[in-house]
């Protein structure tokens, strides 16, 4: 009786289990579709995010390159100048002092008059002279300084035209708008068309952009001064932040006792890495300029400020690199009788170096693009002369971009984009170097 009852119970419980299983698989099956769907959705979100980022990046590059590629060429006029001592206002003197005080501008004007003898009105002549850049006189000066014997002969030079004519040649000025609203008047367009038909005007590589300092004349402005300023600033930053950062990281990671004080230091370093960069600028102003009396606008002060900003980044990266060296290396070295210093210098540091260098390069790329902290110490300035030492007044590439973007002359629009391209090229090179370094030397355990 009892067994029969038990059997019945067994079968019911078995049935129960069976039915429960089938119910489970039913629910699972029913839900399966929506689970697959949600996974597909999740993937789509991720892919969408990447596509969005790429579209933004492409948009950025297209606008910058589209606007700026024309700045790498400059419209130049082929000008034949019949040089003479009289036109230069120096008579028969040919010594350096005479060449220095010679009126090259007058000589250029004379050659323009020779080119268009039919232009006689005072206003027309003024308009004509205005079509050639002041750079023409500097080009002539350089040519004659190199070879004073040329005075008295015909010299043919490629001279830059004024930025408005440059814009006209590059199609940035609309001829159809009323004359009063154009920067170039009808007379000047007539002269320009004659130059075109004579074949004396054309596009040439813009060397000024890469060899000159800043200028208020777009056709003479260059980024070389800013590039040299950036170079000095980064050298100072690198020379200070790398050794100090690595030393701090090694001490904290390998020697320092783990106690409340080192915890406090660690928290503070992490906090410093997140401090807005303008704060470091204020600190630099108070400490380096006002207390130590360093010169304003000098790369040495800029480098010190960027060092402060960079140190936390380098320390954090270096500590991570040291942490990734497995303890077995240290133990093996110690076991073979190496001292702690020997262990670190001979084994741990070389193995951690690629990681440290990567962190440093990324920190330097960050410093290269920084403007805010430099504002406070006077590096956002108009500097024409190319700095010769880190103590001279200088500016840096991103600041140059900012200054050009704010200039009213239209020709600065394309030059701004060109400077951005140069800065981006530097940044991409530095980041690529960091990636290569990591790929080549990184070791996995």
């Amino acid at each position, binding site marked *: 009786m009892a067994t029969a009852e038990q059997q019945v119970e067994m079968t019911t419980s078995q049935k129960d289990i069976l039915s429960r299983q089938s119910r489970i698989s039913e629910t699972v099956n029913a839900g399966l579709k929506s689970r697959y769907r949600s996974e597909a959705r999740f993937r789509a979100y991720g892919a969408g995010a990447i596509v969005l980022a790429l579209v933004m990046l492409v948009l950025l590059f297209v606008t910058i390159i589209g606007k700026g590629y024309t700045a790498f060429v400059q419209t130049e006029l082929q000008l034949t100048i019949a040089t003479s001592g009289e036109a230069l206002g120096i008579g028969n003197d040919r010594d350096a002092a005479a060449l220095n005080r010679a009126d090259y501008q007058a000589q250029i004007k004379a050659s323009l008059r020779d080119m268009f003898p039919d232009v006689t009105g005072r206003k027309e002549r*003024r308009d004509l002279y205005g079509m050639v850049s002041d750079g023409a006189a500097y080009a002539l000066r350089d040519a004659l300084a190199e070879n004073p014997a040329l005075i008295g002969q015909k010299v043919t030079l490629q001279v830059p035209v004024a930025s408005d004519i440059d814009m006209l040649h590059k199609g940035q000025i609309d001829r159809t708008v009323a004359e009063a609203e154009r920067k170039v008047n009808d007379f000047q367009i007539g002269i320009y068309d004659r130059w075109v038909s004579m074949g004396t005007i054309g596009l040439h590589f813009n060397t000024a952009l890469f060899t000159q300092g800043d200028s208020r004349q777009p056709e003479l402005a260059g980024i070389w001064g800013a590039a040299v300023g950036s170079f000095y600033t980064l050298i100072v930053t690198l020379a200070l932040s790398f050794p100090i950062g690595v030393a701090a990281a090694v001490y904290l990671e390998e020697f320092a006792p783990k106690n409340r004080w080192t915890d406090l230091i660690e928290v503070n370093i992490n906090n410093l890495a997140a401090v807005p960069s303008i704060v470091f600028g204020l600190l630099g102003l108070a400490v380096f300029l006002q207390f130590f*009396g360093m010169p304003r606008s000098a790369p040495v002060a800029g480098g010190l400020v960027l060092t402060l900003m960079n140190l936390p980044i380098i320390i954090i990266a270096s500590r991570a690199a040291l942490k990734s060296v497995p303890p077995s290396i240290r133990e093996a070295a110690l076991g073979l009788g190496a001292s702690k210093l020997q262990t670190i210098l001979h084994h741990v540091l070389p193995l951690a170096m690629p990681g440290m260098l990567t962190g440093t390069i990324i920190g330097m790329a960050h410093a290269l693009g920084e403007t805010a902290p430099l504002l406070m110490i006077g590096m956002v300035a108009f500097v024409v002369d190319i700095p010769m030492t880190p103590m001279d007044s200088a500016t840096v590439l991103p600041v140059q971009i900012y200054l050009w973007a704010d200039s009213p002359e239209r020709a600065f629009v394309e030059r701004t984009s060109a400077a951005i391209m140069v800065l981006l090229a530097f940044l991409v090179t530095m980041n690529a170097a960091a990636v290569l370094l990591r790929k080549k030397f990184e070791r996995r355990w």
Partner: protein
Amino acid sequence: MLKKTLALAVLATVATAGAAEARDTIRIVGSSTVYPFSTVVAENFGKSTSFKTPVIESTGSGGGIKLFCAGVGTEHPDIVNASRRMKKSEFETCDKNGVKDIVEVRVGYDGIVIANAKAAPAFDVTREQLFMALAKEVPQGDKWVANPYKKWSDINPSLPNEEIEVLGPPPTSGTRDAFTELVMDAACEKLPAAKALKDAGDDKTLKQKCQSVREDGAYIEAGENDNLIVQKLGANQTAVGIFGYSFLEENADKIKGAKVDGKEPTFDNISSGAYPVSRPLQFYVKKAHIGTIPGIQEYLNEFTADKAWGPEGYLADKGLIPMPDAERAKYKEAATKLKTLTAGDL
């Protein structure tokens, strides 16, 4: 050993910093409005003389005067550019810090224009209408209420039937200071409600009512970059922008200036003073530095030569509005004879 090297390195840094005290470059700070003109002069000065090209920082008038007045010595700037005159309080600060002899040189005028896109309808506004469009609170009867105007035509039917949307400079800008003074204050003081406040001696409320700009989105602070405002005007036909005259001149094919009080913002109108929203630009020179820093006197000569600031000079090409002949002669004399400023002049 390591300690010694470190100590030496620190000493060397301090020593080089000390050696940098001597300076052979003129340092100029100050207004971003004067910056485009003084940089041109500096560049020409650097290229035509044997002196180094002056270094010019654009710090804004107020910030520049603060640096200028900090003291005498090579670590302080030699010249400050200003888009407004030095205040009496600033002059006193200068005096207190030992900056006693200051030479004031006015260089020309700058107009602030109200402009919109070429294709958009022409504007002909009065300063009072501009105040009504931009003030945070406007008087209705003798009460001040939050600005109710949404469209220009709400203020006056003669204005375009378009939403009020003005792109202008932020409060840190000298252009904004001048706009506040020349448009907002000037218009506000004529209103009966403001007069009542003035008669009551409540200067603080008066200032707040007259100078506060609406924050409901009709006035958009477009940053210090005037080029950006010009670009946005091209893209947005209904928007109106506020910026310096030189940007209108450079972009006359894209934008057009509005008439203010019936006067068009042209070179001649600003020069003659007929256009109401214009201001003098000037710079201040520290007399104690002349002779110590090489080239200051020569820089003054370059700036005050007719080929620079004259009616046909290169600064006029860059958008500076030259002064009339008599005024130029007066400031030329101030620059050559180094006539110093007294508290009574301000």
